[in-house]
């Protein structure tokens, strides 16, 4: 059979949002219209979000060419040029991947993973298949050594040996606290129970984190294989993936993947003819961030309110339905086949003393290159922010990076030299968390950011324990007062006292870390709080209540548009003469600014 050219469209949630489905249809049309015989398929997210929609074209014997930012209108032309005329459209081409011959004129095309600055420092273990395989076709996973690790484990290794390998690799949980995965497995293995479970935490709820979604959408089998290996190691025959309901595509692909794996006897009864059986179910969340906390997650699978329960007993001893349960997150499980196939030593050679392997980060905020990046542990924050993410947009000045989502903290410029590992981030008051990195420039108000994250955690508090239920509410009320210009001198002290008390006494991880965004901004940016409270000023120009609208006397031509537009009658002035805004009456809605053709009105702190 002569190989056909292959066209791969990135259809993760991000690709779809960027118009991937339309692009896909346009390609179908172009192929039909031009009678081109090519295989059209889809893949998950490769991580380069800013370049969506991504389309890769593989012509037999040639390297894979990746096109970015393609549009519905232009893609037809790109395809026909490439496939019929061997012409690569340089406007869209990002780079080449893999071996093969190209016409000499394209020798200068960058090598995607090597030359593109976004990928240069990345090491792709978890994301090894994302963006390459069609997640809806199991064979594509199998072709890339899929289920080889499981095969090795169940045919050649004893459960204890599997646990030892994972322990030796130094793999730590990628979801939050960073507990040793091998130890967790060992505890579950040793726990006594007539029934055991493996549970995958796919309740990725942090605003700004989407790596788990990308893995589930782009490479569901890697997670399932990791879970089955865990099942064999700990003695479980049943597993659950708890996926948030807001990830419908991930749920769909997981369910499909489970079905396909069962058909191939890679899951289910007597896997690959061995004595090992492992069944997998998907449970959809119902909209509660706290269910990302492991005990709350278990409660939710049990059909209860997702209210965390005290630990100990830890899930390894008493987890789902009070049975020993091995619970890890998506990224952790996705690492497992790599650890098994490459061996623990190779895995452990990546990273630092205490943090092995890689970590996937979701890069967002005021940076040039947003997206998913998998970097080796130990790389510095500075490298991630400036080398991988390309620094602040519009050559702006870096102010802070928020690491670890609502549970994490803001890290200032003078700590950018910190290596990315569990302990350094925790030491700085932030945490690895799920791996969200929000980069902020000078125009970000740190008080406002703290308020933003606390608004989130406060609204997601389950209400069980006093400090989280009552405390986050009071902290939020104080922050709301401060950004509204009603802050009082003792507020800073109150925030610190409350923050420490919540951190010290809350029942679960969500509560204990909820004050982090406030405590870290207080630690590194207390002066901004003080300016809000004492000077009633927001230097970043974000907190509207602390600003006034002023009309520039030089620019105002007295046209009266602002006066007419003002909904509260705060603007006065005779026609053709300078207008003024009564700041007492003004509600700062900003309509006047929109209306002013002279650009004479602006917000001043």
């Amino acid at each position, binding site marked *: 059979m002569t190989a056909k050219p292959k066209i791969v469209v990135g259809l993760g949630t991000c690709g779809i949002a960027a118009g991937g489905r339309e692009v896909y249809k346009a390609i179908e049309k172009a192929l039909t219209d031009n009678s081109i015989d090519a295989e059209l398929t889809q893949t998950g997210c490769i991580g380069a979000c800013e370049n969506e929609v991504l389309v890769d074209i593989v012509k037999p014997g040639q390297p894979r060419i990746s096109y970015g930012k393609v549009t519905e209108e232009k893609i037809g032309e790109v395809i026909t040029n490439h496939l019929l005329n061997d012409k690569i459209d340089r406007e869209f081409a990002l780079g080449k991947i893999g071996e093969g011959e190209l016409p000499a004129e394209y020798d200068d095309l960058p090598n995607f993973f090597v030359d593109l600055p976004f990928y240069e420092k990345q090491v792709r273990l978890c994301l090894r298949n994302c963006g390459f395989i069609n997640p809806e076709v199991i064979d594509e996973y199998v072709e890339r050594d899929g289920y080889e690790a499981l095969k090795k484990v169940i045919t050649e290794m004893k459960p204890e040996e599997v646990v030892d390998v994972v322990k030796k690799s130094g793999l730590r949980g990628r979801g939050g606290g960073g507990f040793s995965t091998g130890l967790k497995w060992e505890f579950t293995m040793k726990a006594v129970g007539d029934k055991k479970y493996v549970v995958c935490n796919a309740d990725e709820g942090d605003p700004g984190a989407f790596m788990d979604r990308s893995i589930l959408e782009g490479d569901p089998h890697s997670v399932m294989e990791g879970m089955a290996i865990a099942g064999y190691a700990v003695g479980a025959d049943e597993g659950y993936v708890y996926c948030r309901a807001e990830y419908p595509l991930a749920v769909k692909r997981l369910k499909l993947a489970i079905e396909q794996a069962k058909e191939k006897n890679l899951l289910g009864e007597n896997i690959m003819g061995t004595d090992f059986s492992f069944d997998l179910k998907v*449970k959809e969340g119902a909209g509660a961030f706290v269910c990302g906390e492991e005990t709350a997650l278990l409660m939710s699978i049990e*059909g209860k*309110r997702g209210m965390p329960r005290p630990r100990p007993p830890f899930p390894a001893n008493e987890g789902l339905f009070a049975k020993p349960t091995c619970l890890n997150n998506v990224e952790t499980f996705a690492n497992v086949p790599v650890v098994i196939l490459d061996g623990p030593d190779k895995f452990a050679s990546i990273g630092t003393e205490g943090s092995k392997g890689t970590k996937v980060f979701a890069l967002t905020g005021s940076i040039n290159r947003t997206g998913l990046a998998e970097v080796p542990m130990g790389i510095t924050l500075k490298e991630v922010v400036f080398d991988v993410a390309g620094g602040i947009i519009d050559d702006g000045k870096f102010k802070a990076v928020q690491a670890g989502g609502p549970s994490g903290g803001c890290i200032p410029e003078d700590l950018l030299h910190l290596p990315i590992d569990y302990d350094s981030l925790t030491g700085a008051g932030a945490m690895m968390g799920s791996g969200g990195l929000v980069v902020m420039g000078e125009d970000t108000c740190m008080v406002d950011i703290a308020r933003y994250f606390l608004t989130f955690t406060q609204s997601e508090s389950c209400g069980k324990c006093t400090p989280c239920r009552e405390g986050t509410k009071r902290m939020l009320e104080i922050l709301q007062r401060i950004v509204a210009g009603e802050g009082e001198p003792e507020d800073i002290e109150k925030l610190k006292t409350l923050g420490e008390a919540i951190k010290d006494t809350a029942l679960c991880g969500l509560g204990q870390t909820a004050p982090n965004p406030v405590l870290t901004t207080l630690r590194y940016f207390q002066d901004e709080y003080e300016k809000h409270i004492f000077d009633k000023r927001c230097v970043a120009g974000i907190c509207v209540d602390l600003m006034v609208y002023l009309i520039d006397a030089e620019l105002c031509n007295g046209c009266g548009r602002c006066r007419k537009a003002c*909904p*509260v009658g705060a603007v006065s002035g005779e026609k053709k003469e300078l207008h003024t805004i009564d700041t007492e009456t003004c*509600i700062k809605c*900003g309509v006047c600014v929109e209306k002013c053709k002279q650009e004479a009105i602006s917000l001043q702190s």
Partner: protein
Amino acid sequence: MKAENDFNYAAVDNIYDTWKAQKGALIPMLQEIQHEFGFLPRTALEYLSKKLNQPISQIYGVCTFYSQFHLKPRGQHIIRVCQGTACHVRGIAKIATALEDELQVPVGDTTEDLLFTYESVACVGCCGLAPVMMIDDVTYGRLIATAVPDILKKYERGEDNDS
């Protein structure tokens, strides 16, 4: 009593039967009930409580815990009335009264025909157009109370797509 008899118990039976073998499957059952009815009808929950032998208080606790679940039907169109300062100053109260007169439901409720859910919102950010309300994604600004019935009629006639 009649309404009770008309209730589609069979739908709940089916959902229950699909999931009963799986331990702790309350949440998927609720998800499917909501999918079936568009919300979680009290009758369905009480019926399910009996089938599961699980206290209704517990089921209610679960329903009110997860933001995905709605205990009241949601309208086909969501009306949001702006409560911002500008709208307040410009007389949103009259608009609200006009809406309540037309819809015959208080804020937070849904009309009996399930066409509208009537909510209020802190500020939609169109102060220059105050007073403002939104229906689904469409913003109606510089509203006068007398215009309200006509706007709603458009939706009642199903002519909202062209707005």
